[in-house]
């Protein structure tokens, strides 16, 4: 091949994918676009690998992450965001995450103490251990997990999941000390630990501060959930009130339902819009029969006649407070009474830090740390997780633990902490109406849920997993932000306007200077312009995408040459369709002798040169199988057919029958692809025979 062109590509080849909003929003900065695309290709193992590269405990996040990625997902500008968390769950389960064994060896001499075994502590231990340190986790309770164990109910996070992760850490060589409350940090240093990571969480429930809070039948949310998760079944009676609007309140309410309460009411002092709990949680709670009473707050409580009499006052929303939410203001003379059997307070938690630690504390009793290095006022003492931020999400805690591990490593190795100076380019966010208009609207596929009736009886996991087809179809809705096309060689661009004319999404445009721009935040990564550009000036941003078909093709041709099967038929099949659509799936499974499948990531990227190469290297027949109507991009079939016609014309001129090149499934669905393929194979066999006979006759 031409040396000039390959050397040009090498020079200019820096992986200029842009970071999509989902990845920016993720506290762990996971490569979400990558693994979603791998799920769409049916490559679950690879997807899980990408996930594990960015997340120490994918199985935990798969259940309970609050998915800020989905909130940032740009698909919501078209219809609904991609169900990323559910797809992660699918990859975790179908990729066999549970089976993965981990090992680590000790490469450093230092020991590090991790105080607290919540998600931040477990993550810190994981990364420190991988870096080769000796790690001891100190946990005051009898079981590891922190909020994972005592805060989140089992119907949201089954205990086996946490157990598996803990066991993996133990197999890696992390030392665990349970039932051990750390009372002095000096003691830890005396014991030989060179650094300490304090991550004791925020388990101390805030008090409402009203009369009667000590009455029997009033229990704080953290304690309540701990008891539930430890297997004690606290009896709440029939009518239960939950005060608060966050996830702890939801968890408490839904746990109460499962414990048999017949009427569970949530009392929240603001309105539904201000509730901090995640919308899914609220939905599911309502489905399970939980009642919500808004704009109400208890002012005093009294136990009488075996019941709790709770006096409440109605609230209205006034001016916003410092956090930006509108402050609730009691309406005068609006007191009224409600009767309950018990009441659970869930209005927030704070960390409980012993004074003996001599740590400087800040607002809400949280530990003050440097945001980059996570160091406290004491040398060698780091802190993270809810103990620093106040109650936050599991994923944020994991990120904190990971950060702490690397900062501790810097500290012990006397390195200046390297902050990511490179600002990677991110996507700007808003899709233009002219692009949104052309994107096909597809309903978001939710993972199946247990029915509310089934849920209310047990603590079994509420959310079930996708099946293959649903997972692939949902993953295909991804817009592939930042993975699209760019004009890499502006000097080759002749401004012929082909890209502008062929783009189904109206993305390329002429700027004021008369130069074509392909805005990366609008490009839907269909690949049509890349294949059609007459100057070969446009490439896909991901270097992997650029090489993909060439490499797969060469690999297939090499294997075919070695196997010497005849007649050789090469089939370019869409990888997405191989798993998503039933028609192509059967093609893949019933691989016949002599047929070599070259998986491509959408047939729109297939160029005439690829087809010619197959014929050049001995293919007697070539077929192209796409997803037809189910292709997640528009117009792809039209362009494939254009290229097919162009190649057929040439085949005719060089003495090859145009029927040797066929397409399947590109047009409307319907028709039996497997049978069509059989017919094609037969036809090619016939043509080969005919040409052999002809040669013999001529000679």
């Amino acid at each position, binding site marked *: *091949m*031409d040396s*000039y*062109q390959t050397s040009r590509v090498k020079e200019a080849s820096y992986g200029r994918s842009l970071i999509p909003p989902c990845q920016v929003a993720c506290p762990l900065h996971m490569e979400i676009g990558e693994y979603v695309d791998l799920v769409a290709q049916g490559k679950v193992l690879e997807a899980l690998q990408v996930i594990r590269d960015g997340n120490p405990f994918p199985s935990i996040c798969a259940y309970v992450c609050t998915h800020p990625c989905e909130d940032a997902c740009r698909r919501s500008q078209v219809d609904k965001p991609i169900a990323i968390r559910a797809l992660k769950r699918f990859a975790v389960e179908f990729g066999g995450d549970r089976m993965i064994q981990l090992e680590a060896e000790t490469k450093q001499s230092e020991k590090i103490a991790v105080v607290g075994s919540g998600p931040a502590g477990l993550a810190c231990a994981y990364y420190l251990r991988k870096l080769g340190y000796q790690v001891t986790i100190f946990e005051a309770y009898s079981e590891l997990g922190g909020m994972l164990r005592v805060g989140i109910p089992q119907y949201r996070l089954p205990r086996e999941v946490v157990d598996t992760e803990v066991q993996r850490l133990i197999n890696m060589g992390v030392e665990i000390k349970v039932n051990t409350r750390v009372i002095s940090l000096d003691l830890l240093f005396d014991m030989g630990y060179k650094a300490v990571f304090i991550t004791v969480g925020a388990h101390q429930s805030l008090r409402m501060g009203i009369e009667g809070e000590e009455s029997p039948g009033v229990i704080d949310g953290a304690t309540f959930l701990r008891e539930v998760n430890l297997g004690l079944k606290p009896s709440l009676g029939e009518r239960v009130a939950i005060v608060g609007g966050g996830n702890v309140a939801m968890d408490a309410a839904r746990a109460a339902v499962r414990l048999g309460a017949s009427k569970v009411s949530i009392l929240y002092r603001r309105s539904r819009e201000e509730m901090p709990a995640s919308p899914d949680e609220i939905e599911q709670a309502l489905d399970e029969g939980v009642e919500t009473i808004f704009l109400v707050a208890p002012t005093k409580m009294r136990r009488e006649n075996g019941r709790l009499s709770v006096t409440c006052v109605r609230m209205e929303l006034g001016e916003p407070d410092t956090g930006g939410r509108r402050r609730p203001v009691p309406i005068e003379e609006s007191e009224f009474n409600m009767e309950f059997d018990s009441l659970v307070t869930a209005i927030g938690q704070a960390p409980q830090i012993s004074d003996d630690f001599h740590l400087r504390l800040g607002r809400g009793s949280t530990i003050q740390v440097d945001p980059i290095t996570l160091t406290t006022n004491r040398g060698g003492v780091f802190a993270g997780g809810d103990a620093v931020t106040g109650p936050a999400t599991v994923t944020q805690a994991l990120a904190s633990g990971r950060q702490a591990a690397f900062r501790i490593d810097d500290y012990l190795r006397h390195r200046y902490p390297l902050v990511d100076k490179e600002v990677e380019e991110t996507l700007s966010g808003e899709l233009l109406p002219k692009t949104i208009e052309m994107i096909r609207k597809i309903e978001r596929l939710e993972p199946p849920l247990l029915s509310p009736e089934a849920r209310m009886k047990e603590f079994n996991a509420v959310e079930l997993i996708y099946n293959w087809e649903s997972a692939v179809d949902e993953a295909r809705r991804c817009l592939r932000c930042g993975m699209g096309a760019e004009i890499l060689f502006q*000097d*080759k661009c*002749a*401004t*012929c*306007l*082909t890209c502008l*004319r*062929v783009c189904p999404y109206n993305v390329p445009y002429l700027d004021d200077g008369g130069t074509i721009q392909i805005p990366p935040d609008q490009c839907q990564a269909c690949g049509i312009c890349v294949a*059609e*550009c*007459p*100057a*070969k000036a446009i490439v896909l941003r991901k270097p992997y995408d650029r090489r993909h078909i060439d490499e797969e093709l060469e690999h297939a041709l090499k294997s075919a040459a070695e196997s010497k099967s005849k007649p050789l038929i090469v089939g370019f099949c869409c990888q997405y369709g191989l798993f998503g659509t039933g028609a192509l799936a059967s093609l893949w499974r019933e691989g016949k002798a002599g047929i070599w499948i070259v998986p491509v990531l959408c047939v729109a990227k297939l160029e*005439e*040169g690829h087809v*010619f*190469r197959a*014929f*050049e*290297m*001995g293919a007697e027949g070539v077929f192209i199988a796409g997803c037809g109507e189910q292709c997640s991009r528009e117009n792809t079939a039209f362009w494939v057919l*254009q290229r097919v016609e*162009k190649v057929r014309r*040439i*085949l005719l*001129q*060089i*003495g*090859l029958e145009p029927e040797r090149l066929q397409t399947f499934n590109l047009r409307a669905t319907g028709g039996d692809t497997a049978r069509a393929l059989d017919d094609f194979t037969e036809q090619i066999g016939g043509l080969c025979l005919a040409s052999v006979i002809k040669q013999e006759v001529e000679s």
Partner: protein
Amino acid sequence: MIVAEQKPVEEVRRIITPYERVLLLGCGTCMTVCGAGGEHEVSFLHSALRVAEARSSDGVHNFLEYTVKRQCDFEFLDLLVDKVREADAILSLGCGIGVQVVAERFPDIPVLPGVNTSFMGMAKEWGVWDERCAACGDCRLAETAGICPITRCTKGILNGPCAGAKNGKCEANKDMDCAWILIYKRLEKLQQLEKMRRYYPARNFRVIPRPRRIVKKADVDLGDDNG
């Protein structure tokens, strides 16, 4: 834009038969825009030729690919010197101009055409090209509301129309509009029909007689400047 079509591959094969090492030379300007001879088409032709070679028993060619920004200026061709040394012939996918300039620059090596240069025209839409200009050298678009009667009327008459149009389409090609009906309608819209009522005498067919040259360089006397 100069518009061309790639020659049929069988013709190309015939043309390159005597040569072993052939440099396939593309052009990055007009031939790219009209999709006949840019880098993409060079690659396409190369792949097609390789298939033909592989399947025939007499394939002895080695191909090199290269695309220059333009073939019609000598300076761009200077970049080719090393490549040309490694070739026995150049198959230029430039327009007729490009082929000839390359041949003039490299007179010691056969330079062969790979496209049929057809006309100067525009893209009506992707994949559809219409001739617009015949380079007659005597542009009279002012009289015909911007519609050229020489390229768009099959007879090239100046006092149109003839009687052959049916349904507004030319008698020679039912897909093409009758230029004079288009001219009439547009002049009517511009309220300039008297331009069509005028008598236009016979054309000067030899405004610049062939072989044609335009000299823009002035002959200046660099001697004493005494006013």
